[in-house]
């Protein structure tokens, strides 16, 4: 089964640490045996030294009683150190592997999965798996050895008493079986109500402006109090249930111990046992009962572990759609000639987005794409950057099919500016440098000047070293857009892609940026998507897309000359309203 194989794939991350793990297993066994000795020693002291007055045995026994804890401490130290080493390193390996895998996955994958969920898998689930495989697995081993030894020892001391002990273990199992269903149910209903509570707060906090302007604070407080009370009531339920369970457990344990102890004493009175036997027996009984108690805790952890490993496997099973072809060409800077040959594309089968797109763009040309929302403007550009592969047809860069180019070197040809500015919480300089880490401060400043943001950056307290997202620094959407424009310019790309890059700017600043961009655009190919006509009028070629095909193409004047042209219609409307975007609905 594929799932099984993937589980083994994760276990495979343990391979470098197999010797450490093997050592830990050996030490654990040793440790378990050592832990079994003190009751025997105590029995010997009570029976032999005190009971029989055998003073000669006292000193060797005393030596053993001192030596055993010391030896146990050494073994235990070795075990902890080995486990910590293997466990944490394993966790790091899994995380780095998973992160690398995630970064290579396609946009389609990220569209389907929220960031929060992915972060939880990367950080939370991996540590569950790491913890289970390193720490808990040894607990299981040691528990199994421990109970095996304890069972053998108790049967050897007195088999009838041992049967009573078995009965106590059965009682434990019964208690667990009886309560576990209820425990799960109340736990689940609590977490559901907790999710509702936290979802509610999140919603209220993010829509804080609306809450305030409608004066709904009191109302929201009442809603919150209701939700909070429900969640707390359910939490109380869950706590009470688990408390009952633990109280039952401790009652069974204590009563079991007292029955065993006093029966043992009765046997001593009858002369069938010594008191030392009773002490040892009781100690072993405890050693058998603890794993039995731990088992219930363990069962839950194993459940968690299985869920976590499944969720990680799911991500690892996700294949990067854009697979690197063996023998792909690494290329240096290209000239920027682009050619689309009969490109077809669909996100979902049966709903084509691009239907036979043909276009040849010479190096240095500026091409503008316009058309209604959903006509495939942005899709064409993502295909060009190979975020997706075409369904059929070919895209060539300087005559080379994009599939044949090494992905990283292909992507380095582009400088992109998207509608929602994606900036990182590092300094502005680092943001600008993101695409080209080697850029000098002068390069960055030049780029910032093109994007008309240099003066603003200089007005900040730390200038280019101001960290974005720190307190007191609030960038407007327009300012963020300008920083992303500067970032794309600083990348010094062969092809510049601007997808609604200036939508949040006022016409005035947009105009200024356009003038500056003309200098930058020299010698570069550029694709511009916009819904304001003023943005695209100076393009070398304007392409009107409709339903995934080119409906009109040409310079502004040429398109305006078409009597019933779509462009002309849009332009006329723009002149009266200021926008040309059509609502698809």
């Amino acid at each position, binding site marked *: 089964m594929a799932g099984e194989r993937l589980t083994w794939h994760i276990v495979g991350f343990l391979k470098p640490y197999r010797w450490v793990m093997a050592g830990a297993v050996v030490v654990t066994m040793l440790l378990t045996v050592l832990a079994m000795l*003190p009751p025997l020693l105590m029995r010997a002291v009570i029976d032999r030294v*005190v009971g029989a*007055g*055998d*003073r000669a*045995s*006292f000193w060797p*026994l*005393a030596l053993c*009683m001192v030596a*055993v804890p010391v030896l146990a401490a050494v073994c235990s130290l070795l075990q902890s150190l080995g486990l*910590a080493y293997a466990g*944490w*390193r394993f966790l790091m390996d899994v*995380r780095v592997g998973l992160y690398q895998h*995630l*970064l290579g996955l396609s946009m389609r994958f990220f569209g389907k999965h929220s*960031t929060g969920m992915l*972060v939880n898998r990367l950080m939370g689930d991996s540590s569950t798996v790491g913890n289970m495989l390193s720490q808990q697995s040894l607990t299981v081993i040691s528990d199994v050895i421990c109970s095996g030894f304890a069972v053998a020892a108790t049967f050897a*001391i*007195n088999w009838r008493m041992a049967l009573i002990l078995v009965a106590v273990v059965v009682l434990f199992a019964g208690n667990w079986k009886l309560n576990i269903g209820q425990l799960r149910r109340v736990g689940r209903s609590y977490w559901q109500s907790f999710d509702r509570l*936290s979802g509610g*707060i999140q919603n209220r906090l*993010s829509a804080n402006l*609306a809450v*305030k*302007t*409608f*004066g*709904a604070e009191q109302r929201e*407080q009442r809603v919150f*109090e209701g939700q909070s009370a429900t969640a*707390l009531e359910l939490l109380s339920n869950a706590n*009470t249930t688990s*408390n009952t369970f633990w109280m039952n457990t401790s009652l069974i344990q204590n*009563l079991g111990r007292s*029955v065993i102890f006093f029966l043992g004493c*009765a046997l001593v009175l009858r002369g069938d046992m010594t008191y030392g036997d009773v002490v040892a027996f009781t100690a072993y009984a405890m050693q058998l009962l603890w794993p039995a108690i731990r088992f219930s805790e363990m069962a839950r952890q194993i459940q968690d572990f299985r869920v976590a490993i499944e969720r990680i496997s799911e991500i690892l099973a996700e294949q990067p759609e854009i697979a690197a072809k063996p023998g792909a060409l690494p290329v240096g800077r290209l000239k920027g000639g682009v050619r689309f040959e009969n490109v077809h594309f669909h996100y979902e089968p049966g709903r084509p987005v691009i239907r036979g797109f043909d276009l040849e763009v010479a190096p240095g040309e500026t091409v503008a794409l316009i058309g209604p929302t959903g006509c495939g403007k942005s899709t064409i550009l993502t295909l060009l*950057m190979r*975020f997706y592969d075409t369904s059929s047809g070919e895209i060539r860069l300087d005559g080379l099919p994009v599939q044949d180019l090494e992905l990283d*070197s292909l*992507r*380095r040809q*582009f400088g*992109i500016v*998207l509608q929602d500015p*994606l900036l*990182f919480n590092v300094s502005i300089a680092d943001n600008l440098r*993101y695409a080209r880490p080697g850029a000098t401060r002068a390069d960055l400043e030049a780029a910032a000047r093109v994007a008309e943001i240099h003066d603003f950056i200089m*007005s900040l307290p730390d200038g280019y070293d101001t960290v974005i997202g720190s307190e*007191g620094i*609030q960038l407007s*959407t*327009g300012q963020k857009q300008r920083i992303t424009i500067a970032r794309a310019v600083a990348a010094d790309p062969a092809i510049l892609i601007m997808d609604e890059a200036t939508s949040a700017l006022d*016409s*005035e*600043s947009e105009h200024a940026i356009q003038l500056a961009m003309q200098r930058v655009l020299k010698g570069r190919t550029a694709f511009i998507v916009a819904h304001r006509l003023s943005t695209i009028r100076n393009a070398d070629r304007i392409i009107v897309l409709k339903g995934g095909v080119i409906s009109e193409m040409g310079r502004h004047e040429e398109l305006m000359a078409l009597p019933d042209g779509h462009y002309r219609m849009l332009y006329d409307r723009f*002149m*009266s*309203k200021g926008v040309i975007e059509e609502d698809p609905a």
Partner: protein
Amino acid sequence: MRPHYRNYPFRPPRRQHDAQAGALALFGRFLRVYVWPHRRAVALCATLVCLEACSVYVLAWLTQVVVDDVLVVSPPPTAAYSSARAAVATVRVAGRQPAESGPPRLRDAPAGRERPAIGLGRRIDQGWSHTPRPAGAAGILLAIFLAYTGTIAGINLLMRFAARVRIRTGQAITGHLREDIHRKIMLLSLSYHNTHTAGRLLSRVLWDVNAVQDQMLNTLINYISQVVMVLVGVVILFAVDWRLACLALAVMPFYVLVFKKGRPAILESGHEMSQSNSCLYGLVSQKLDAVRAVQAYGRQPHERLAFHRISAVYLRDCLWQARTSAWMNRLGEMLSALGTNGAVFLTGTWLVLDGQLTLGQMLFAQGAAASLFGPVLQISFLNVTLTNLLVSLRRLADILDEPLEIDDRPNAVPFPAPVRHGLSLRHLSFRFPGSGEPVLHDINLDVPAGGWLCVMGASGTGKTTLLHLLARLHEPEAGEILVDGVPLSNIRLESLRHHLALVPQEARIFSGSVRDNICYGSPDASPAQIMAAARAAEFHDFILTLKVQYETLLGEKGISLSGGQKQRLSLARALLTDPELLLLDDCTSALDAETEGKIQETLARIMAGKTAVIVSQRISMARRCHRIAVLQDGTVAEYGTPAELLARGGFYARLHAQQTE
């Protein structure tokens, strides 16, 4: 164990806080406000837990009675003892014979029944019946068994009850604290919310509150019981035998010292770990959010390296902590084992052999000594537990103590509805806390009642801030806003917000149905009113295309809306409240021209006679307004009727030219 600093430069440093300052006052305050009302329940819990702690000693004492008075396990009388001793001496002299073989005389000496070999194949020593067992030994044993079992069952019952009380009390305290924090967060001003992310506030309301409640109650109850347990244990030890007591207490300081030595490193590494961990979370969520940019610039190898570096820091801290805690715990375990099993047990045995102590007393002392180690450790780390608690407490106190920037004045008046004279802004200035440049500077504007003012200007000139000031979401730094001559800050907040409606640029929706969302501002609107508002916002037709129309769920579990749809919803929401004063913040920017035109016409119809301040980039909207103000660098650069501004040839005229040509 030294920390590893090599990779720390790749991670922002951890800020150090002065943990102790004002700690006592803080504890006192939270105890007074949240725990004191439940003092009876807490006292009850503490008493019951103390009882439970002491029951351990009762049980141990019962065991002692069994051993000494029922089973009568004791060494042979002195005569046998001295002869045995002589025998041991001979054995020693004779050469190292194994101790088990023992002197043969001892085996044969007592008179007793011969028993078969059982157990581990070892012949059972019959014990020395030099002291006869009491006559009704079995009966006494049964009685003690009943007492023992009864104590266990009784304590178990009491503990169930105590747990219930504790759970209820904890629930009440959490509820109380959570409600206070949430209320405060709801009341805090917009600028507070802008600088504190939702995620951070959320974790305050949920996790810090839980931590405070758990730790505060547990610390309180457990510490009382532990102190009682230690005191009783020490008394018992001394009562049994002062030498054993001294021995046990002599080990204790070393035991505590081991943990005291290790603890700072554990704490330090713990802080470093959580810092690295939150860095990792931050890094990962940010990069996965912007994975498009990462891939577009082909920076995966770099990102992997960055992740690897911080992971390595995290790993080293983890290993550091694991090493330290392994050493500390093992040493501690060894010491406590040596102390109880070694020192107390062996010395006790020797004393028993000498006849100074009975076996039962020795076992009792050993049990008491063993149960001292845990509580002593806990008590000696009271300050650490409190420091952890203090972190959460301080975060909560920060929120509770945050001054309410915007609140009702003592003699606030209701909003003067309907507005007769209009709005006037006098010398209005504003800057965001913590930033140098003022956003708005000396703004003077008048909006007559029923008039529409259009605010235009480049991005970042403070248009949105102006609207937020009008809605009193921020408090101006200087100057004032007057409604019919009444300063805005003198109007009751609830009344003000009831009479105005602000439609923000970025519309937010609540999880819930479309209908719930539209009637958010006026929860008791009739369906007809809701539909009328949706029609006015050109949203009705779209809603009708949905499967269950107005009952369609939005948000997390429902459908998601496009930017334009959200804007229309938010406009409908505002129109439904039938506001006296309408504030529109470029709320049609994501709409197509045709819809926008229709909305503008509807607005002109239904808002006729109402006062409005409208931020817009569109000439078509500006033309409908009575006055236009153009903002530039936080001041009013142009002001007048559309015709006047067109004639003046400034920003507005340029915009006009660009958009109409």
